[in-house]
């Protein structure tokens, strides 16, 4: 049984592990990439409903996970696959979820659920099966007692405990310090492909820790939780920006960048979760079809530039569906971030060029710094 905070109940059959689970109820409209979604740390403490009806068709393989475990707290689908069909599959999704202890449910009304969330907004929910089942009133009570997403500080919970290094593929060109707030495996890989040696650091890292690596650039990753709670990371980033290091942020990293610039963040009614969102680069006018997973966004003036402690900044990318801020950049300094996922796992690769942009900033910055040294 799926019970929403506002009392709506959906009946279905257990999928994956049995038991009970709580989290923020959200929906994802991607038609491919369930394995990447499940292992994306940004989904920590969220129950994810897939709008695509058939899930699990290609089973689970060893190459596609975005982290070492499943992060979603619960999984809601309509039609779980009975067989896995793909040459790379090593096991079924059902077995994988069970093995990872993820409580799921198959309900016919995934569309009704989505419509409900669209109208009422994301909310807390619980999935119950097997022995966890109880009268609805009691389950509802349990849901209402579970923690809310607003005010949740989750980055440290999903972050790596110890730093580690993703070596550059081929010749090393740059050293990147990447602060893991829930980083996806594809992100350092995309940088490594471009000659970056990526030092992945825990979320608790300070500006000193980061700068101690003497990186050519600094990266703040995506991650779960409410950006309003990430005071520590905001401080760390301010230190990085003050040092003039090139900066690139994705998703949660974009929100922290916004806060470091003095902007506020807010919770979207039901967020963007899917792989088909149109984002326009305001400088080129080009539209990228992009992968999204965010429930919060940055509040910033869409037109013109605004002042920050680091000079003027502007909104660089906008979501054409709802005019939500999707990217920020400093006008005179090498720092930018996007709210969406250029690493795109799952999702389209339209925005992969942002990694090139980051490398270009590091390249320019190194040249100018060396140039000034020489002078």
């Amino acid at each position: 049984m799926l019970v929403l905070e506002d009392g709506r109940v959906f009946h279905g059959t257990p999928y994956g592990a049995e038991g009970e689970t709580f989290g923020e109820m959200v929906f994802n409209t991607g038609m491919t990439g369930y394995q990447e979604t499940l292992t994306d740390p940004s989904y920590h403490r969220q129950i994810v409903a897939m709008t695509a009806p058939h899930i699990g068709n290609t089973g689970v393989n060893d190459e596609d996970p975005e982290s070492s475990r499943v992060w979603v707290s619960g999984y809601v689908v309509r039609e779980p696959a009975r067989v896995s069909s793909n040459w790379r599959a090593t096991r079924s999704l059902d077995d994988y979820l069970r093995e990872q202890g993820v409580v799921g449910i198959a309900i016919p009304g995934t569309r009704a659920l989505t419509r409900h969330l669209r109208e009422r907004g994301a909310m807390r929910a619980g999935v119950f099966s097997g022995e966890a089942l109880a009268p609805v009133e009691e389950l509802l009570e349990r849901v209402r007692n579970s923690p809310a997403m607003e005010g949740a500080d989750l980055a440290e919970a999903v972050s790596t405990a110890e730093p580690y290094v993703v070596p550059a593929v081929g010749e090393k060109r740059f050293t990147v310090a990447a602060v893991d707030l829930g980083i996806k495996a594809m992100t350092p890989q995309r940088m490594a492909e471009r000659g970056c040696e990526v030092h992945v650091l825990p979320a608790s890292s300070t500006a000193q820790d980061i700068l101690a690596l003497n990186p050519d650039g600094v990266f703040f990753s995506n991650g779960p939780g409410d950006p309003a709670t990430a005071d520590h990371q905001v401080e760390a980033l301010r230190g990085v920006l003050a040092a003039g290091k090139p900066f690139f942020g994705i998703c949660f990293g974009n929100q922290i960048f916004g806060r470091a610039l003095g902007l506020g963040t807010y919770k979207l009614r039901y967020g963007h979760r899917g792989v088909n969102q149109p984002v326009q680069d305001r400088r080129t006018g080009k539209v990228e079809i992009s992968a999204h997973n965010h429930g919060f966004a940055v509040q910033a003036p869409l037109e013109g530039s605004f002042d920050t402690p680091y000079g003027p900044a502007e909104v660089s990318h906008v979501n054409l569906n709802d005019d939500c801020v999707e990217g920020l950049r400093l006008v005179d300094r090498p720092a930018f971030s996007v709210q969406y996922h250029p690493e795109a796992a799952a999702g389209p690769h339209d925005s992969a060029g942002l990694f090139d942009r980051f490398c270009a900033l590091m390249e320019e910055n190194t040249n100018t710094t060396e140039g000034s040294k020489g002078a």
Partner: protein
Amino acid sequence: MPKRTDIQSVMVIGSGPIVIGQACEFDYSGTQACRVLRAEGFRVILVNSNPATIMTDPEFADATYVEPITPDIVEKIIAKERPDALLPTLGGQTALNTAIALHEAGVLAKYDVELIGADVDAIQAGENRELFKDIVAKVAEERGLNAESARSFVCHTMDECLAAAGELGYPLVVRPSFTMGGVGSGFAHDEDGLRRIAGAGLDASPTTEVLLEESILGWKEYELEVMRDKADNVVIVCSIENLDPMGVHTGDSVTVAPALTLTDREYQNMRDVAIAVIREVGVDTGGCNIQFAVDPRTGRMVVIEMNPRVSRSSALASKATGFPIAKIAAKLAIGYTLDEIPNDITRETPASFEPSLDYIVVKVPRFAFDKFPGADQTLTTHMKSVGEAMAIGRSFPEALQKALRSLEKKGAVFTWAGEPGDKDELLAACGTPHDGRLRTMQQAIRAGATAAELFEATAVDPWFLDQLYAIDEIAAEVREADRLTVEVLTRAKRNGFSDAQIAELRDMSEPEVRDLRHALGLRPVYNTVDTCAAEFAAQTPYLYSTYDEETEVPQGDRPKVLILGSGPNRIGQGIEFDYACVHASFELSAAGYETVMVNCNPETVSTDYDTSDRLYFEPLTLEDVLEVVHAEQQTGPVVGVIVQLGGQTPLGLAQALKDAGVPIVGTSPESIHLAEERGAFGRVLAEAGLPAPKHGTAVTVEEALTIAEEIGYPVLVRPSYVLGGAGMAIVYDDETLSTYMAKAGAASDHPVLVDKFLDEAVEIDVDALFDGEELYLGGVMEHIEEAGIHSGDSACSLPPMTLGAYDIKRIRSATEAIARGVGVRGLLNVQYAMSANILYVLEANPRASRTVPFVSKATAVPLAKAAARVMMGATVAELRAEGMLPAEGDGGTMPLDAPIAVKEAVLPFNRFRGVDTVLGPEMRSTGEVMGIDEFFGTAYAKSQAAAYGSLPTKGRAFVSVANRDKRAMIFPVKALADLGFEILATEGTAEVLRRNGVHAKIVRKQSDGTGPDGEPTIGRRILDGEVDLIVNTPFGSPGQSGPRLDGYEIRTAAVLRGVPCITTVQGLAAAVQGVQAIVRGDVGVRSLQEHGERLRGRVSGAAGEG
């Protein structure tokens, strides 16, 4: 970047007649384009020879040319209209080829016409196999993408072939270079096969060259629909997966959207390659599709091909996602970018996004092999289906089963009745792709086949196979349940089982299941196709049924009228009926009703969500329609359901719907029965004093022979339970009649109708409108071929070329008597035969006919719109007063100088090689064209040019006619000789011609064989391209060898070579007039708007004089 302001007028080219592989999806795309362009303020000039299309309605363009789509005619139109731009990507291959020809001939440059939405280099790069391979290789290399084409080697010797085979492995494909029509290509499964096929191929190739290509048979097949704008924004509108693996043409495959068996990595790689390829090819703006094959064992992906234009798949993708590809392509062509165009389903979000589906779409093809005995029924890469049905469900089983019942074809849906048959035989049958293979697979499952065995036999992805097993398990549950609980029934409905299937499983009747289901409160809900998986609220009501939680039918505010469409295209029921439905919808919406369309054909304009106030994409079965009616009744009053316009499909539901309390408007089901049931109709005729050909009904051979003796040969025989001419034959003797009866008797218990066949009669088709009081004669069409050829296959002219005012008067009063006797409210089609000055009634159909669009265009009167109004209660007098119908006169009182419109049928013989091309009482055409001009000859010539390519004006004509035609042929053949044709003839025909002063060279018949000095037979000569025109009327009866077989060889050779082949003597006379008209050089062009103005001017002028 907003709309371009440097162009003011745009020419759009349509796709011409409906043929296999190019059907009404191009009417859908073209209509969308015309609407967009006009709404944006451009002057639109349209060329399309197909009168049955909605796009050729005068209101969709400023100048509509129903003229042949040949470069010379289009040039004439360009010279006259001087368009600024030409948009060629929405009319299929026909439009694209014509545009390229105009470009290459320098016509576009000469008249300063800019090609928009397409680029000649891009088209060539996309369509040329070699160039395309290079592009794929380049993309892979330069952008580091995982992309390749099928591996291949060019070989010049057998040793090279063997070496290549060592690299490629078996089976492999052999394609000789530069042979026509793929002659000599084939699959080699082993070395012996390779030696044989490649050996022949090397011989056949003028360059002694064959291409050996790795076989990708059995690989998974995918297609992506891509759009790109001039700012280089690219979106993938839809992914489509073929359930049938590689080896079956996409058009003949069961296809599914979205793709269901790809991981994100594989899908994104496909997406990256698609985008890179279209950038490299240089498709600047618009839609295109690109096909891929994936090796299921290794995931290796091969790019197969792309179409740099809107295609059949784009129509499917548009309907599957709610993203209107053609409409957006038209906007991109005139300068907009994707982000500037709103998504009109959400209205809040832009078109620069990729639709997300929370449902499954299944498309299934519909075939017509029963019409083409002798055709090879194996499905190959050569498309053979004539139509398709699409269904939407919240799961694959639901969508699949809905799609199968949408086909509306006996034996299409899954069944658990009777014994499945032998497992091994069924598995063996599954190994060859054929019409209904899914059902064969389902029977194999019943017979105990394992998933592994089925995969071995079919190479269908195991996930899809498992879904078939899941369906089978549900069937078992339904059959074995103690009683049908709400749980069991819900599960069955969610898996797409119809009440009829459940009834069959439970040994109940369908109404019993329905009543039980309703008593349990189990009804479908209707979900919206919203492009975004419910992420945003949808504004455009485009709905499908599913057994899910919430219904999304919006509240209505006006009285509602439901219009039932015609389902999948088939021979005898095609675009013409969609035309009538769409017109009714437009008109009734304008008249203040809320129009609700129900249909399941993704190719059509009726299933464009823009056409009606609400669209239900649903099967047209009683169950599905009743549920839609119920759902609509929940949100407001339904004042009527229209069954008269969608052809036989909705008509067949009329009585049952009425019995269920549904208000049927127009002609009542009882009246429909009066016209369709032979005894009842006989009484109507008798009362009106109208003669019908003598007839009888026979069950046994003896009865049939007795009737034939009584009424005299020839007789027309047909089974009583079929419509549309299926199983009809003309029989000249006892022997053939006995054979026919034996076959018919074996096929069914139904009696056979035996009619006197009126030899040498003139057949007449009439479309009329009747309001209960007044008759409006829409048009009188005279067939060019004599009676005995199905009216759908016969060419005809309007006004009738030989009937006088007196004949028309008789026809008018007979039609009125029938309309009154039957009780028609709306449209009526009557077929007459005029023989020895007696007007016989052959049949009457109280519904829209195939000829309604043709009549509407030839007479400039919107007949279908008027019919819709009459059905809702308007009178002919009121419509005359409104100006919808002419104030005075009707289609029977055309002015003497009215232009002549000729309709010609287009037959699919080139798809079904080996099928005899002689026309008969069973309809086989897929489409039609119209030629319109001042005089019959020119109009006929245009119709031929539009249907088959221009008539020859010089060269060799071969003539071989049946004895009965020998007198009639003399004059026209003499005329051909006078025009400078060299006449070839078989001995008998040549003799007659010589005596009449026509020198004819005698050629050897097929049965004579090659002469002693190597003189070729006529078949050989045709194949060698020595003959430019063939006149061959059949004689002898089917099944006999000799003369008829000779004719068969000749006609088959004609199809292979694409030589015009005339099979009736009346057709010959018309053709000669046509050739004369071309030779005189008086083939001009005139738009329908000009014709209409002239007709209206004359009609009112004549009234003024009166």
